[in-house]
C-alpha cells in the first residue's frame, strides 16, 4: 500500500513516480483531443492536410514564383513542404499546448494528476497531425520522382529535436498562460511571424553569411535545415555551428520549461 505524505513543498519526491503511474493518461488525453477535434466537421481529418497544403501553395507562389528565390535544385513545392512539415508541427503544438491548461481548467481544479501530462499530450496530438502530413510528403516525393538521399535515415533525430523544441516552448507558454492570459494574444503573433522568420518559404542559405549564427538562435532554423538536409540532400548542407546553437537552445528551453512548469504547478489550481 502506498503511503503518502502531503506537506508544503514536498510533492517533488512523489512527482516523477506519479508521472509514471499516470503514463496512460498521456495516451488518453491525446486520444480524446484527436477524437473531439474533427467531430461535427464535414471533411474531418482532411483538415490536417488542407491547412499545410494551402500554406505551401501560397508560399510557393510568393517566394518561388514571384520572389524567384533559389530552391537548391529541388522542385519548389517540395522545398516548402519539407519546411512546412516541422513548422506546422511546432506551431500547432505550441498553440495547443499553450492553451491546454486553461482549456482543461475544470480538470485541474477538481482532480489531481501530474499537470505535466496535459501540455505533453497536446504535443503528442499535434505529432499525429505531423505524421499524417509526413505521409503526404512521401506522396509528393513519389509524384516528383524524387529519391531521398541516405541521410534520410537520420531524420528521427531531427523529429526528436522538433518535438523537444515544441515541448520546451509549449511548457513555458502553458505555465505562463495560467496566470497571464495575455499569452492568448501573444501566441498567434509568434506563430504568424515565426512562419516568415523561420526558413519555411525559402532556404536559410539566402541569409547573409555574417547573420547566420544569429539567425540560428531561432531553434526552428536548425530543425528545418536538418529536415531539408535529411530529406532533400543535394545542395542543402548542414550549417553545423548554427545547428549546435539550435540544439543548445532547445536543451535550454526544455530544461527551463520543465523547471518553470514544476515551480508554478503547485499553484495552478489556486490561480486558474
Amino acid at each position: 500500500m502506498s503511503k503518502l505524505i502531503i506537506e508544503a513543498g514536498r510533492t517533488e519526491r512523489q512527482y516523477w513516480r506519479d508521472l509514471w503511474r499516470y503514463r496512460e493518461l498521456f495516451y488518453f488525453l491525446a486520444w480524446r483531443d484527436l477524437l473531439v477535434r474533427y467531430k461535427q466537421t464535414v471533411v474531418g481529418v482532411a483538415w490536417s492536410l488542407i491547412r499545410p497544403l494551402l500554406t505551401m501553395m501560397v508560399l510557393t507562389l510568393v517566394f518561388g514564383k514571384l520572389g524567384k528565390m533559389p530552391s537548391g535544385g529541388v522542385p519548389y513545392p517540395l522545398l516548402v513542404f519539407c519546411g512546412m512539415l516541422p513548422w506546422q508541427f511546432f506551431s500547432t503544438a505550441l498553440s495547443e499546448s499553450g492553451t491546454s491548461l486553461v482549456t482543461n481548467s475544470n480538470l485541474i481544479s477538481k482532480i489531481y494528476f501530474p499537470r505535466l501530462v496535459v501540455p505533453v499530450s497536446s504535443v503528442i496530438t499535434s505529432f499525429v497531425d505531423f505524421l499524417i502530413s509526413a505521409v503526404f510528403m512521401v506522396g509528393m516525393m513519389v509524384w516528383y520522382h524524387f529519391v531521398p538521399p541516405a541521410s534520410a535515415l537520420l531524420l528521427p533525430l531531427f523529429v526528436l529535436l522538433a518535438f523537444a523544441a515544441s515541448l520546451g516552448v509549449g511548457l513555458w507558454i502553458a505555465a505562463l498562460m495560467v496566470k497571464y492570459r495575455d499569452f492568448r494574444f501573444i501566441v498567434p503573433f509568434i506563430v504568424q511571424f515565426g512562419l516568415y522568420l523561420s526558413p519555411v518559404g525559402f532556404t536559410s542559405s539566402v541569409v547573409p553569411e555574417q547573420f547566420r549564427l544569429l539567425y540560428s538562435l531561432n531553434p526552428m532554423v536548425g530543425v528545418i535545415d536538418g529536415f531539408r538536409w535529411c530529406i532533400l540532400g543535394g545542395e542543402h548542407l548542414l550549417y553545423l555551428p548554427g545547428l549546435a546553437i539550435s540544439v543548445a537552445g532547445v536543451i535550454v528551453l526544455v530544461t527551463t520549461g520543465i523547471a518553470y512548469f514544476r515551480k508554478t504547478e503547485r499553484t495552478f489550481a489556486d490561480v486558474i
Partner: protein
Amino acid sequence: MSDVAISVESLSKRYIIGHRHSKQDGIRHVIENTIRAPLQWLRKRTDQKNSEREEFWAVKDLSFEINRGEVVGIIGRNGAGKSTLLKLLSRITEPTSGRIQIDGRVASLLEVGTGFHPELTGRENIFLNGAILGMSRVEIRRKFDEIVAFSEVERFLDTPVKRYSSGMYVRLAFAVAAHLEPEILIVDEVLAVGDAQFQKKCLGKIQDVSANQGRTVLFVSHQIDSVTRLCKKTLWLNQGKLHQFGPADAVCHSYLSLDSIAGAKRHWPDQRKAPGNEWVRLESVEASSEQSTTDGFPINKRVFIKATYTVLQRGKVFVPNMHFFAEDGTLIFISHDWFSGWKNTPRPAGRYETCFTIPANFLSEGRVSVKLAISTYRPFQVHFEEPDVVAFTVVEAEDGETSRGDYAGHLPGIVRPIIPIATRVL
C-alpha cells in the same frame, strides 16, 4: 499496518485576496507593479499596514485522525473550508503549512462528471474518466461491465454524453468513481443531483464500500439527514477550524440546533468589512418569526427578514433582493423590492431598514438560507451580493392549521402552501 487511514496535523491553507489593482494579473500590472515596487517598499517601511493584500485562511490549524473503514461526514456552512479541505486531501492544491499522512490510494469525486467530454460517447468517457482518476486501461476493461450495469445507461453507451439527461450523466460519473476501488473515497455533494432512487443506490454503494471492503469514505453534504444515515462520525468545520468531531448523531444535532438559533441574526460591527461598496453598505440582517420556538420557526407563522443598511451617497435607486435556498441548495424563490415606495426614487444618504415578509404556510419544513443583494437596475449594477446572510429552520407547528392535516409521515417538497381544493359530487 496501523489503523489510521488519514492523519492530519495542524493543516492550514492561506489564500491571498487581492484588492484593487493587485486583483488583476495581466502583464501590464506586473510591469506596473515592478516599477512601483521600490516605492511601495519604502512606503511599507514607514507604514506597516498593508491594505492591498489581505490574508484569508480557508483552513486553519486543523488536526484529526480517521481510521480505516470509517465513513466520516463533513459538514459546515458555505465557506467553512469543506471544499478546501477536500482539495488538500486530494492533492489538488498544496497546504500552506501542516502535514497530511494518507495510507492508500485516494479517489475524489469533487464534482460530478469532471473529465467527461460532452462530445464523446458514454463508452469513450468511461475510459477517459477512469484514466483521469488514475485507473489503468486493463483495470477499466475488467470493470467495464460492472460500471455500465451500475449506471443503467447500457442503451446509450454509444451516444455522446451531451445528449444524456443530467440523471444519466451523474449515474455514469458516480459509477466510474465508485468502481475505482480506492482505499479512500472522497465524495463532495455529488448526491445533490440525481433522482431519489439513484441517491439511495449511491448511498448503498458507499455503505457497501466501507462496510464490506473496509474502505474509508469522506462524505461532504448539506443534507444532514444523509450524513446521519450514512456516517458514524462527523467532522464539523466552522471558519476553517475544527468545531466538533465525534459521533454523527451528536454533531449533526448540535449543528442543526445552533444553525437555527444563532444563524438567524448577523451583524457587521466593523463597517469596513461589511458587504457593500462606495454606494451602500450592509449593517445587519435578522430573521424572526411571529412566534419563535427553540427548534425554529413554525410553518404556519409569518417569517420576517429585516436588513439594515446605510446608503452612503445620494443618486441611485436601490433594489434590495433576497434569494431563498432550501437545504440541498435548490433556489426556492427570489424576491426584490419592486413594490415599496422606493421603486423609482433615488435615495438620500442615510440608514434604511427593509423588511421582507414570507407568508405563513408557504415554506416547507427544513433549513432555509438567505442570500441578500442590493442592486440598481438602470444601469444594472450589483452593489453587493452576500450568500448565507442568515439561515433559519422551518418546523412543523405545534398548533393551528397547516397543510399537513393529520398526515404524520415525511412530506417532501420545498414549499408547502395551503391551496384551495374543492371536491363536489357529480
